[in-house]
């Protein structure tokens, strides 16, 4: 720990020496790691922050998404973490376990702007571990239904499906009406976990119990999982992995499939890549609800939070930057620059978001998201869900056997966690 502190202070001393001081006043240098496009965009927000806080200089380091997770972990081991970083929500439990994160609960309780009610519930909860806050939601990413309005209309559906049975009927109608031999009503890539997980959430699945045991052999998981697998067995969805789809946008534009479940980044991609004459033929809708449940259905709450590292000697300055980035005005600017959805409710009143046709579904969905299990093993568990789902989709076994296999696999993954919890 001390070695880490020494290393951190050496780095900061160097940074301070390099940057010097503005107008003879002491300047604190806050290092921020941003991922991918967000890392580029945040640099454009920094000047306004520095204008308001002349005593703080923010250095933005951009890290590619593909390397981010490994880089953060090795930086933690090597004692070279920055003061603050953008963190994928599913990483927060992991970095909390390795004790890299500062507990932000006291900061938030003192803050005038960062307050729970201001943010969407599901997304706030993703950064909450045992009642302690380890990150402040920056932007959210949820999954909704993207669909071809023209194809659904031709099949006799003027509106997107609102319930599971409407969804199944729409798929059947699409299959019967469409003449294209390679057409499938819906695309559910078998190498992606959000689709089966979203459907299982709608039947009430919790995946893991509080005592770190698996919960897949459970009617509440099985119902959604079976519903997912039935898309394949009825021939509504092709059994293909995402990597087999050479060009998703081209195939969606050509009407090879009419629906898919995906996230906000694809709104921008669709607008860029679909041909102009197809631009008015697609839109988004919230996830259909399980029969008998209120509309809309539930979806997952992903995205990124802003986390401050426990090793940072400038936590107050870093917290100021967190407050700045999450204030409604900056959230809207960030949305305009990057297309990432604001985590803060007030930001959604901005005209840029209000007038956007595709954003309405996301706004509705954000009030109906559920936080996933906040344990370091979650990504592995999610991977197991789609792996067993793929085997079942290919007819190796049925949904019940898939759930049984998941219970065995996930219980083995959680063995260490149970032991740690028991200590």
């Amino acid at each position, binding site marked *: 720990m001390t070695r880490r502190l020494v290393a951190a202070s050496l780095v900061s001393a160097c940074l301070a020496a390099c940057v010097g001081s503005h107008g003879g006043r002491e300047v604190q240098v806050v290092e921020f790691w941003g991922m991918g496009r967000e890392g580029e965009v945040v640099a454009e927000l920094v000047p306004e922050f520095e204008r308001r806080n002349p005593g703080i200089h923010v250095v933005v380091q951009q890290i590619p998404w593909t390397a981010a*997770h*490994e880089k953060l*972990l090795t930086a*933690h*081991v090597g004692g070279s973490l920055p003061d603050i970083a953008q963190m994928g929500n599913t990483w927060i439990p*992991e970095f909390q*376990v*390795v*004790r890299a994160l500062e507990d932000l609960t006291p900061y938030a309780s003192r803050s005038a702007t960062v307050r729970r009610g201001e943010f969407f519930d599901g997304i706030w909860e993703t950064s909450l571990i045992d009642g302690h806050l380890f990150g402040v939601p920056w932007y959210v990413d949820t999954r909704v239904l993207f669909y071809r309005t023209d194809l659904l209309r031709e099949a006799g559906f003027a509106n997107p499906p609102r319930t599971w049975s409407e969804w199944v009927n729409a798929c059947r109608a699409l299959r019967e009406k469409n003449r294209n031999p*390679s057409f499938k009503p819906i695309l559910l890539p*078998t*190498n992606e976990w959000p689709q089966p997980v979203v459907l299982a959430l709608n039947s009430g699945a919790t995946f893991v119990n509080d005592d770190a045991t698996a919960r897949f052999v459970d009617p509440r998981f099985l119902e959604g999982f079976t519903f997912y697998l039935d898309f394949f067995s009825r021939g509504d969805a092709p059994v*293909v*992995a995402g*990597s*087999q789809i*050479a060009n998703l946008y081209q195939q969606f534009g050509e009407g090879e499939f009419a629906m898919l479940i995906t996230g906000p980044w694809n709104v921008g991609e669709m607008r860029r890549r679909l041909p102009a004459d197809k631009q008015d033929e697609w839109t988004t809708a919230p996830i259909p609800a399980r029969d008998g449940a209120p509309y809309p259905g539930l979806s997952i709450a992903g995205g990124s939070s802003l986390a401050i590292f426990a090793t940072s000697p400038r936590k107050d300055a870093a917290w100021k930057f967190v407050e700045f980035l999450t204030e409604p005005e900056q959230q809207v600017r960030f949305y305009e620059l990057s297309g990432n959805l604001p985590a803060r409710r007030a930001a959604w009143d901005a005209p840029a978001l209000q007038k956007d046709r595709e954003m309405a579904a996301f706004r509705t969905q954000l009030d109906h998201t559920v936080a996933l299990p906040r344990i*370091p093993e979650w*990504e*592995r568990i999610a991977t197991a869900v789609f*792996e067993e789902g*793929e*085997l079942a989709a*290919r007819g190796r076994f049925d949904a019940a056997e898939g759930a049984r296999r998941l219970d065995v696999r996930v219980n083995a993954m959680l063995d*260490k*966690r149970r*032991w*740690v919890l028991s*200590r």
Partner: protein
Amino acid sequence: MSRTPRAFRSEARAAVVFLLPALTLIGVFFVLPVIAGLVLSLTDFDIYSLGRTADTRFVGLSNYAGLADNGVFWVAMRNTLYFALVGGPLTIAVALGAALLLNAKAARLKPLFRTIYFAPVVTSIVAVAVVWRFLYHPRVGLLNTLLGYVGISGIDWLGDPRFAMPAIIVLAIWKNFGYSAIIFLAGLQNVPEELFEAAKMDGAGPVRQFLHITLPELAPTFVFVSIITAIGYFQIFAEPYVMTPEGGPLNSTLTIVMLMYREGFRWWNMGFAASIAFVLFAVVFGGSLLSKRIRRRSSR
């Protein structure tokens, strides 16, 4: 031997001094990490251990025992053997064929072809993957278009568990044969011309010349090429990783090193990943010993 013990001692001391830098480097950067890896493979070092070292258990050989029960490990092992045992000999055969063509007296534009054969070896695998993914595309890919002319259609190369590994093998052969071909070419150029002249005088045709002169003369090159290829192919990672990052349909292209990467760097199960590394080491080491024994027997 008129050396006095004293002279011997000073000579030995000099030798130690000369060897020390190299031995230190090998010790620090090779021996120690290997020992650390071995110790790691006997623990359950994972993300919890990173948080608190005390949350590490010494688990003896249970990581290794766990491998034996792990279905995915056996799938990866089978895939790796499939890849090495099918892809290896084919790569060597193609490399030898290319080298013979390049060495043929009738061949024109040799430098051009040498460059063409070697280009895939030095091309970035990521760029290669983009192009090959289009070649393998089930609908618009060049390969299926060509197969369509002879009445075969609709093979989903990377998506069908039966074809994904063959597709990766073809890519790996194309990517790697150039290296072995250049070494074979060097070997071929070292075969004395007189042997062929003598054989011709004795009435040996091209086939007999190839079987009785070229192949035996190339034996040392064969040994080198086959060992290098086998070691490389048992550790195959980049080709399947870029083509099918998740391990392909039903893990049909998941190799041992891909599994190790997934367990170690994605899930941070370092102890378990280390045990996979040692099993792979044992397999490669055993394979090399076996091939050495076979060669010794056949040369006897």
